[in-house]
């Protein structure tokens, strides 16, 4: 089984663990890069419903919505796992689940380290191959992943 290296990022912010978790989830619209929306109209709100199974979705100014995924794990204020269900071509795909785990580590009363990991990225390739019916084709799935892995490592 070939896997694609997860994307890992971290940042230390000047807020307590509780507040950092709150701002990250309940107030996502305040910081989410507005240019990165799959909606046609400007982004108005980005919602993470605060419970396991809760939806993660964007609301545009024209009222249209676009789902990004759902909450897999909800452990305020330490940890959060979100399902990112946008395919390699930026469409919501309910059959696709990649995981975004966010950990909030208290460094002091007013400082929190936020560690983010976006993993199972190979599923985007698997799903793309599946959609194109290429999974079992010669030079299909394995070749795709090998190429993907090579480029991703470059």
């Amino acid at each position, binding site marked *: 089984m070939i896997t694609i290296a997860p994307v890992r990022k971290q*940042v230390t912010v000047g807020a307590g663990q509780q*507040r950092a978790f709150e701002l990250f989830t309940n107030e996502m619209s305040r910081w989410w890069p507005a240019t990165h929306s799959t909606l046609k109209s400007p982004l108005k709100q980005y919602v993470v419903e605060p419970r396991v199974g809760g939806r993660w979705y964007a609301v545009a100014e024209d009222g249209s919505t676009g789902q990004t995924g759902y909450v897999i794990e909800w452990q305020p204020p330490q940890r959060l796992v979100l399902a990112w269900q946008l395919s*390699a071509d*930026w469409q919501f795909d309910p059959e696709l689940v990649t995981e975004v785990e966010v950990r909030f580590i208290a460094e002091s009363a007013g400082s929190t380290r936020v560690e*983010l990991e976006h993993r199972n990225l190979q599923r985007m*390739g698997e799903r793309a191959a599946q959609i194109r019916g290429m999974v079992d084709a010669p030079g299909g799935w394995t070749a795709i992943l090998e190429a993907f892995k090579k*480029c991703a490592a470059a």
Partner: protein
Amino acid sequence: MAYQTAFLALADPTRRQVFEQLRHGPKPVGVIAAQMPVSRPAVSQHLAVLKKAGLVADRPEGTRRVYYIDPHGLASIRIWLDQFWGDALTAFKSEVEKEGLDQ
């Protein structure tokens, strides 16, 4: 950078529709254009941009060319996500700091 070309290529909604059409299998320009409200030369131009970004590839089939999603282009998705989460966390940090100043 590959992620930039890929991201810019897919930022255009019409171009994304062209790309989307190829999800269901390889297609010649004429077939793609027939499903779109834009002209065939416009579709050809979008395909040229997608090809340059490494997102689609083409091959001759009889007298015409068919286009298909280039699996190698998926690499740019990981690179793009890496950049994206970097930007997102930076924005998150500035929002936290802005709040700190307000208090």
